[in-house]
């Protein structure tokens, strides 16, 4: 009976740890803005959640299936090879599909970390928000530089230029009435660094 009581307590703790991250995510307006009910509970369970890799929102293709974020790579060599340009992820270069998907997730992660090079005007007078922006920008630049360094080491290029690219889906109207296909150049746009 006592063993079952202890097991029940452990089960309850674990189920709460599975439930709390998506609950906190679903009840958040933005980073650090979770509901006053979810936030302290999440904080209490955080060590357990971190250790067991449970911090997920499970918002697959939600709230809406949105555009994708890719990376255009331009390589310049100093050994006479002509410059190369390609997109990551590229299905022709990356196989098997899971390997392709790993690269796809990395370009999405880089996009997710993006913070503009200058602080937005609306936070100019707020030292806390400015510090958060500075840290966010530092994280973004660090990952972008890591990507650049990796590509340089793999290709032997003298210069690696990275551009974030957004690729959106054509709307049904564009597809049906204007004949805009899924990879039409008009569905791509370069994003600022």
């Amino acid at each position, binding site marked *: 009976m006592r063993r079952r009581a202890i097991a029940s307590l452990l*089960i309850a703790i674990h189920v709460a740890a599975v439930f709390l991250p998506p609950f906190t995510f*679903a009840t958040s307006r933005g980073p650090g803005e979770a509901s006053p009910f979810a936030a302290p509970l999440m904080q209490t369970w955080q060590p357990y959640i971190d250790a067991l890799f449970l911090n997920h*929102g*499970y918002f697959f293709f*939600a*709230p809406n299936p949105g555009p994708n974020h890719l990376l255009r790579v331009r390589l310049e060599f100093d050994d006479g090879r002509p410059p190369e340009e390609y997109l990551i992820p590229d299905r022709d270069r990356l196989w098997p599909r899971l390997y392709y998907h790993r690269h796809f997730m990395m370009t999405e992660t880089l996009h997710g970390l993006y913070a503009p090079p200058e602080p937005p005007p609306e936070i100019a007078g707020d030292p806390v928000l400015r510090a958060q922006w500075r840290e966010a920008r530092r994280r973004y630049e660090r990952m972008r530089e890591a990507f650049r360094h990796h590509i340089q080491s793999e290709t032997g290029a003298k210069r690696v230029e990275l551009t974030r690219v957004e690729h959106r889906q054509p709307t049904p109207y564009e*597809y049906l009435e204007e004949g805009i296909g*899924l990879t039409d150049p008009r569905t791509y746009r370069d994003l600022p660094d």
Partner: protein
Amino acid sequence: MSVAMGLGARGKAAITAWDRFWFQPELPHRLAALRIAAGMMLFYTHLVWAVNLTGFLGPDAWIPRGLSRDMHAGSWSFSYLWYVDQPAVLWMLHVAALVVFALLTLGLWTRVVSILALVITLSYCHRLEGSLFGLDQFNTMAAMYLAVGASGGVWSLDSWLRRRRGDGETVPSVSTTIATRLWQIHMCIIYLFGGIGKARGELWWDGFALWYAAANSEYQSVPLTWIIYAPFLMAFLTHLTVFWETFYAATIWRPALRFWTLAIAVLVHLGIAVHLGMITFGLAMIIGNAAFVPLAWFTRWDRRLAGAS
């Protein structure tokens, strides 16, 4: 007095139901089937890292280990891969990891390798943050619950060796029940928030979400863009996905609705595998749903296999 007695009876009934749900010993067949399927998925997932192991874990990795550690600064996560990036050591560790996943699938020294498999899976996930997606969430879930239950009790080299020693009896265990129940509840939570997340998007309400998934060329494999010429079907499948996910946690427990809930799960995830190019994730979620297939189905298979041999 009668109110108090009524409450007491209800409380007692709740405790009995809780006890039956979590602690009624269960035969290992269902968890063993999950072990074999999830073990293969864990093996394949990690095998694919070998396509460019040093590119992901080496000194010039996409995300070097120092950056990976900093991404987890202040967190309680751990990865032994934060402490190595020398190619020779990485390859040694990687081959060892693949051996552990192979042993888990085959069910040899299952108790130990299931715990090792969890440590390895968590370490890869924490080290490779940035290149992960739903598949890795499934893998960790599966490794976690396989480490809890007696998944090697049957259909394993362990059970074969036990039979050879004359100790071949397959016994039900409480740990198997707990592992299976945790797996099932975890699946319910995934779908509940998958549904809630979609319910917040207007495309999932106006019926066009499926188009925007189908028209996503980075995901697309077998084209599904023809769905735009069948707007009734497109909108129906969009709405069905939201309602099926949101109410999965309720319908899956009702015997009368379980078959249909699982049938939709298989169709949705096969669709993801075939049309959205996420073959591994689609298959992983189908494996996840197998935790709800009644135990009797697996034991029947066991009797058939025993009869055939």
